[in-house]
């Protein structure tokens, strides 16, 4: 991108004199900075939402994709036989890496949240659960079901697809929503800055007329406005990002169970994303103001 070096040059080296020819504006300048800050703050949260739901989708996908559960309901006497038969069958099925019957303690732990700690599991007709670990390739679920039907009539295979799919989909949608929000925030920032730049250009009509009279080119006049608005957006967005990150840090930490809302935040390299927000805001302001200035100036005589 050729644009970037020119952008940086205009901004840093700039033309300090071009900046001087436009009278300083106190109040509207602060409004632009504030708007950029507020937008950056919101962008931090949209970003956190996108990244968190992205992580969630991946986790559900990874952890659940390669595991299934076999549930065996059988009369008291046949339970052990059927379980053994099922395990034998599973271990000879291609695509299954490991299969393990859950112990009574493990089953009790699973039921505990619903029935309390004093549940006499032994006295209840609780089905036996078998945890299945698949290989990367996975197994043929339909084929396995047929074989189970023949050999272990009380077995029900749950390959998790039924409830994993909608969850994964929901997380994916949430991530998409986050990115759309970020795009909308960028567009709104561009709109606000365009409006502010138009107001500034209109307020400085006499200055522009004088500059044109003495032979200033449109690009020179535009530069004065562009530099100003770009710096305001940069500054505002930087403050907004710092405040936004502070707010994210203050959110309660994620629970061990990986609750959804409390998992909102950044992890590892994700912390680098918000750093990109101020330069992006500056870039948006640079193009928005440049466009507004060129259009306004071309309509003058």
């Amino acid at each position, binding site marked *: 991108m050729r644009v970037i070096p020119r952008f940086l040059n205009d901004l840093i080296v700039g033309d300090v004199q071009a900046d001087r020819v436009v009278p300083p504006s106190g109040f509207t300048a602060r409004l632009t900075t504030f708007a950029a800050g507020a937008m950056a703050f919101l962008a931090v949260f949209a970003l956190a939402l996108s990244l968190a739901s992205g992580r969630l989708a991946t986790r559900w996908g990874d952890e659940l994709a390669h595991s299934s559960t076999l549930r065996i309901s059988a009369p008291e006497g046949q339970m052990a036989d059927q379980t053994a038969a099922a395990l034998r069958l599973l271990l000879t099925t291609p695509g299954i890496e490991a299969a393990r019957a859950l112990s009574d303690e493990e089953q009790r732990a699973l039921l505990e949240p619903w029935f309390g700690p004093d549940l006499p599991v032994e006295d209840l007709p609780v089905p036996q659960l078998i945890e299945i670990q698949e290989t990367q390739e996975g197994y043929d679920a339909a084929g396995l079901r047929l074989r189970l039907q023949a050999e272990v009539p009380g077995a029900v295979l749950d390959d998790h697809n039924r409830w994993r799919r909608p969850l994964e989909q929901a997380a994916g949608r949430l991530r998409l929503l986050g990115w759309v929000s970020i795009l909308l925030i960028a567009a709104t920032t561009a709109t606000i800055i365009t409006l502010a730049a138009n107001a500034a250009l209109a307020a400085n009509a006499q200055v522009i*007329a*004088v*500059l044109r009279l*003495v*032979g*200033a*080119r449109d*690009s020179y006049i535009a530069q004065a406005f562009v530099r100003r608005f770009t710096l305001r957006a940069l500054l505002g967005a930087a403050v907004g990002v710092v405040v936004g990150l502070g707010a994210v840090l203050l959110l309660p930490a994620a629970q061990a169970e990986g609750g959804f809302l409390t998992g909102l935040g950044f992890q590892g390299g994700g912390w680098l994303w918000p750093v990109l927000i101020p330069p992006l805001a500056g870039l948006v302001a640079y193009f928005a103001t440049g466009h507004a200035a060129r259009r306004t100036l*071309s309509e003058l*005589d």
Partner: protein
Amino acid sequence: MIELDNTAYSYGGGELLSNISLKLAPGSFHFLTGPSGSGKTTFLKLCYGALVPTSGHVRLFDQDVREMDRDDHAMARRRIGVVHQDCQFLDHLPIADNVALPLMVSGRETLENHSNLKELMHWVGLGNRASALPPELSGGERQRAALARAVIMSPDVVLADEPTGNVDWEMSQRLLQLLIELNKMGKTIMIATHDLNLIRAAKSKVQARVLRIANRKLQLAGADL
């Protein structure tokens, strides 16, 4: 350098100027007279491309104004110094910066030009007013500053609209002297004025032609002055 060919201009109503043809040769010195409202300012605006003729052609430095884009106009204005009747400045910058504005916007603000600026400010009698803001200046001071701003780029042409309207006789003589010296350096000068004394004073020092606008036409005034 500035060429009007069968040019006419109307502001919507009837024509204010019609059938005007004129070639401003390099190094010429013109006065432009006529009753107020006759179109002197409009004529000058046609000469620096601020107005596009409603019919006919205006050429600035061999370029038709209708074919010039905005950057071409900016470039042409660096070669044409203009002094308006109501001079406008950047009110937040001191007068010295305003005078140096043409250098600033064309990126020619050099050290050498800086000393020229000081000299020029003294020449127009604003040496000790350099740091004043434009709204603090009197009408005469504003006109002198506008003239200084118009000539600082050493333009090929200087167009001045009533440059001596608000200054006393002595100062008007000094301004005239400055314009005459610029003319002797080869610049083309056109001064719109109704001050006949000024024209008479100039005629003794420089070969000036007097143009008169009357009845929408541009005429060469005779030796009646």
